[in-house]
């Protein structure tokens, strides 16, 4: 009840600040199990993806997020677990008790769709995309019948650059590309390169001064 109210507040706030629009370019918003993989520039990325998903899809879609961030403090824990039903994974290898890919496949087997950020951390630099971690490949191999959908979140890094507290209202878009699957004999680095290219292809050509 409270979680639903808070989720409505967050979605409303996201719309007020970003007037976010979803572009379903390569795929329709159908109620199918999917792994959405997106660029990661801000903590709000999955909120925007969540906002443009039709409510029916929202309910079964779980963002995969870093446990170190989302377990800190009661508010973050409440938002991460109760509002977004996030799947928290430990990013630091030495602290891990469970394999992240195993956690994600378990969630897929329960019928959930996932939002993952294969860059592994927020991209705060000038490059459009950081090199992907290999987790996406292992996940794709483990459940090869699930579509992997590239999702480009545009402009959110300008709304709230790292370290700022006040968001600047700017129009954001979330673009969904054509789904990929890992080929039977595809090598890890080939698949990762293909996935990176598919995601980058969705980023608009920016006019730089």
């Amino acid at each position, binding site marked *: 009840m409270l979680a639903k109210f808070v989720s409505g507040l967050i979605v409303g706030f996201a719309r007020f600040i970003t007037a976010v*629009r979803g572009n379903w370019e390569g795929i329709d918003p159908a109620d199918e199990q999917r792994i959405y993989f997106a660029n990661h520039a801000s903590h709000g990325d999955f909120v925007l993806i969540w906002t443009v998903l039709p409510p029916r899809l929202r309910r079964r879609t779980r963002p995969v997020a870093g446990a170190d961030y989302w377990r800190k403090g009661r508010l973050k824990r409440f938002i991460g677990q109760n509002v977004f039903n996030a799947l928290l994974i430990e990013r630091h290898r030495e602290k891990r008790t469970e394999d992240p890919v195993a956690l994600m496949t378990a969630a897929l087997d329960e019928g959930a769709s996932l939002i993952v950020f294969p860059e592994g951390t927020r991209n705060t630099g000038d490059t459009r995309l950081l090199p992907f971690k290999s987790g996406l490949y292992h996940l794709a191999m483990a459940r090869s019948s699930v579509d992997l959908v590239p999702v480009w979140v545009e402009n959110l890094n300008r709304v709230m650059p790292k370290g700022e507290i006040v968001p600047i209202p700017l129009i954001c878009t979330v673009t969904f590309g054509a789904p990929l699957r890992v080929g039977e004999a595809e090598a890890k680095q080939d698949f990762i390169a293909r996935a990176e290219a598919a995601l980058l292809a969705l980023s608009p050509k920016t006019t730089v001064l």
Partner: protein
Amino acid sequence: MSAPHPDLLTLLAGLAAVLVAASIIGYVLQWRLSPDGSNIVIENLNDRIRAWWVMVILMGLALIGGRMGVTLLFAFCSFAALREFVTLTNTRRADHWALAAAFFIVLPLQYYLIWIGWYGLYSIFIPVYAFLLMPIMAALRGDTDHYLVRIAEVQWALMICVFCASHVPALLSLDIPGYEGRNVLLIAFLVIVVQISDVLQYVWGKLLGRTKIAPKLSPSKTVEGFIGGALSATLIGAGLAWMTPFTPLQAGLLSFVIVLMGFFGGLVMSAIKRDRGVKDWGHMIAGHGGFIDRLDSVVFSAPIFFHLVRYWWSLT
């Protein structure tokens, strides 16, 4: 809040009748020519008519709501327009404070000044205070790359989206003898003349348009469309004199000024879009593009209309 003026109700009923007629025409066109939704012009026309319904209903509610309604509506329009404008600029991290100030301090303060009717301050607040303070905030962050361009962009965004747009609700603070309690109708007059001129230029252009006026900026604008639209909108404006403090001749002349400024406002905003390589400012209004796409002509004509009326008709 007092009861809405009978003239306002007459006007809204008239607008509803026009929209009903437009909807029926759109429906018949779709049924005859585009039953499967394949004719893009007709689909766009119907999108536009639907958006007109929403805009007229919102505008009508705001006008019935009086000062509060109109001020809030235009404050929101300014917010949405500024959001679209700043999206297309080259802002950097160093502009963060200045931009936050533009959205969350300058914009609300400007509309608050409009709301309390403090002409002496709202007419200079942005061009004097905001224009001097914002470069200071950006300079304090120390990033000098493209400094002049960045500052100029944000200042122009504020000028167009906030300062100019706020002159629409500012019409409510004019004190015109014998016109007390009817100032919302001045807003209706301005908005109707501007918008009907846009629509009629589009219609005349589609019917007779041959010679392009500014092929580089706006390929759909033609000399024939402009002349036909401007003259017919001026005539309609003269015909609306009953709801204004003007004689029909004065209303026609003011309409002509409004139409001219509106036309050039559209051209200027097109030039910015071309420069930034986009077709529309945003995606908020189906068939129209963004808020700025719909507001560009109002924004350019509002301050001129406001000052002409203030100089010749108002006591304040």
